Structure formats: C-alpha cells, structure tokens
C-alpha cells in the first residue's frame, strides 16, 4: 500500500498568506493594509511581506487571477489575458457613456474635491447639476459633507470605485495639474494682445 500523500507543513508566513488570500477572495472591494492587519491580527510588516508573496504568485501572466494594489488597498482582478472572455459575460462598470461634461466634472472633483456644484459650474462655465447627478448614480463621486456656513452647498469627492475603474492606486497617481494645459501661456499672450489693442 502506498503511503498517504504528505502535505508540506506550512511555515507561519505561508499560513498568513493563505489567510490573506481567503480574505481577498471574499471581499468585493479593495482591502486596506489596516483592514488586513485587523482581520489577521498580525503586524503590518508581516502582512506586507505575505502580500508580497501573493503578488508574486498572482502576477500578470502567471495566473488567471491577479493581485493588484488599487484604490488604497489590495484586490484581486482577472488577468488581462482573460479580458476577452470576461467581456463576453460581463461589462466593466462605467466603461461606456461618460459624456464630455461628465468627464470634465469628474476631473474637477478628482483634482479639487471635495468641491461643490457651484465651484464646478464656475470652472466649466455651465451648470453641473446633471453631470454631478449622473456621476453620483454611477458611484464615481459621492457626497462628502457640506460647504462652510449654514446651508452650505453639498460637497463631492471621488469614490474608491473611481480609483478602481481608472486603475489608480491613489489620487496621487493622477498627472500633476501643472503638467496639464501647456497651451495656457499662448492663450494668455493672445488675450493680452487684444486687451492692449482695445485700451490703446
């Protein structure tokens, strides 16, 4: 009779990695390092090391499931190789139908949030009500308190779903505002030229 198959005794770090794996499979949103530490009752350093192990195991090209750092936490997603098959059954949230107005509003909230509808309208030059309502409905932005003073306008900020849909680890991954709009100087020159003509 053959001896029974012997399992390799897991070292403690490997056991922690398994527990993290289980937590991440149950979660439907990224889990933060703090949440993982709380659930496993482990130190940050050890959880991070175990996450490193998992990230290696579930890397793009190695597995159908990929562990990624996104929206301030850790989460599993499908590998990019499987995207075609996934697309036959599922639709990514918010992939389609985001109007230009909605995208500009989203950019303003992402960079300047929490901000109010009047603030958004001031920058875009047109009312932002329907764009804001649409983005709230899609779960990309959410209310974040009210502006200063009594009866202050509702403020909005982007949600973790926004970061997840756009594949951002955090908002700091957005391009720097100073690097955007480099034709602004040209516009300024032209405006000043017109102004000096008119005042002359």
């Amino acid at each position, binding site marked *: 009779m053959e001896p029974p198959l012997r399992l390799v005794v897991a070292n403690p770090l490997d056991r922690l990695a398994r527990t993290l794996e289980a937590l991440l499979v*149950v*979660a*439907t*949103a990224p889990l933060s390092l703090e949440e993982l530490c709380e659930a496993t009752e482990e130190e940050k350093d050890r959880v991070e090391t175990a996450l490193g192990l998992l990230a290696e195991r579930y890397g793009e090209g190695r597995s159908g499931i990929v562990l990624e750092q996104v929206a301030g936490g850790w*989460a*599993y*997603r*499908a590998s*990019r190789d*499987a*995207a*075609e098959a*996934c*697309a036959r059954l*599922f639709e*990514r*949230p*918010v*992939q389609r139908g*985001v109007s*230009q107005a909605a*995208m*500009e509003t*989203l*950019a*303003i909230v*992402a*960079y300047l949030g929490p901000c109010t509808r009047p603030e958004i309208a001031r*920058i*875009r*030059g*047109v009312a932002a009500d329907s764009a804001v309502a649409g983005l709230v409905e899609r779960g990309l932005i959410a209310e974040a308190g009210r502006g200063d003073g009594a009866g202050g306008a509702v403020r909005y900020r982007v949600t973790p*779903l926004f970061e*997840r*849909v*756009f*594949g951002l680890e955090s908002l700091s991954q*957005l*391009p720097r*505002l100073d690097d*955007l*709009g480099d*034709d*602004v100087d040209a*516009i*300024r020159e032209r*405006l*000043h030229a*017109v*102004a*000096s003509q*008119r*005042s002359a």
Partner: protein
Amino acid sequence: MIVRELELDLDAFEGPFDLLLTLVLKEELDLADVDVAGIVLGFVERLAEREELDLEACGEFLILVSALMELKARGLFPDEEAELAELEPEEAAEELARRLAEYRQMKEAAAWLRERLAGERDRFFRVGPAPLAPEPERRLAPQDPDGLASVLRLLAVAPPEVSLAHMTLHFPPVAQFLERFRALLRSRSMFDFDQEMEGLSRQEQAVAFLALLELRRANQITISQAAPFAPIRIGRTEETGASNERTPAWNLRSA
C-alpha cells in the same frame, strides 16, 4: 434660400433653424448644448449645393448666427459679466486667462481620464455590495462577584415590621353618641359640637362625628357652621324627639 427654414441635424436639436431660435429664446433649449459650428457647417453645405452665391441669405445667416454666438458667450459667464466689465482691459484679460487656464487644465485632465479609462478596459474585477460585517460582540466590563453580592444584600434586608397598633383601637358604638346627642337636644334647642367633644379621645370624636352625620341623614338635627373651621353648631328639628326608635344598630366596625 430661406435661412429660417434651414434644416439642422445636431446632437441637441433636429429641425428648422427658426424653431431652434424660438426654443433658445424661450429658454427651453440650453445654448450651451448647441453646437454652433454644426449650424454653420449645415448652412455652408446647403450653400455649396447652389451654383449662385445667395448674398442675402448669407447676410441674414451671419446676423442670426452671430447673435447666437453672443448669447452663448454671455451664457458661459452668467453672473460674472458685470464683474468683468468693471475691470480694465488688461485686468479682464488676466482674469479671463486665469479662468481659461483653469478650465484648460481640467479639460486636459478629463482627456487623460478618458484615455486611462480606455487603457483599463481589459481590467475586470468584482464589484458588488460588501459582505456583511459580523455583528460586534457585546463585551461586558469585568465584574466582581462580591460587588453583586453586596448589592443583593442591600435588597435582602427584611422589610420594616407592619404596625398593628390600630388593631387594638377601641371604638365606642355609634349608638352611644346618637343617644347622647338626642338627650342633649331634648333639654336644649342647640349645642356646640366642639364643646361636647372636650376631653374625648380621637377615636371617640370620630365616632361622635359619624353619629352627627347619621342624625343629619335622618333629618333629626341641623348642622351649621359660620365659616370653615368655625365651631359646629347643632340644632334640633321637629323630628328630633319623634324618631328615637329608628336608631340604627350599626357601629364603626360594621361600616
């Protein structure tokens, strides 16, 4: 060619040009949504279909479309128009440049986001309501059994003994006072209740008062008092002497 009948096919509007103007003037259509360049394109295309240049139509179109442009431009800075008008041209230019720069940046940020979204189209992940968090365990503070015992001990004290003193009280029969009052009224037409009570115990006074009420009920006496707490005066009626035999046979205990 009649400009007002120019058929338009825009994102926000489809129909003749003059309906568009009517809707805009009635504020039923937001000019910000109207693509003015699209209107110009539509007109130029119609113009190109003809061999001759229709100068009159061109002139009319220019006037209409420039009015539309001005309305739209004003609409973009609704409340700040006056504010800008007060500024010197250089200041206004600087203010406009600042606003344009701000908007320009956001427009480019929006473009970056759109590009990013397209680049992420092959990243599929789970979304859904989060699984419920477990109900928090209700933890009690550590307790000292002696504390509980001492509190219980406070509750376990025997209740104070009930006084039975009233059981031994002696009540004279009401009839005794009925007789006494009737006898008094036979010799006098009136007497003072308080005076008669002098020297009697509380219980005897109470029974005497009951006797008074009884006599009054039988209409054998009159009771009068000048003011609250003033002496109670008892007088006789015609029946006082006649109804001796109707003495009720009850006393306080039977009441």
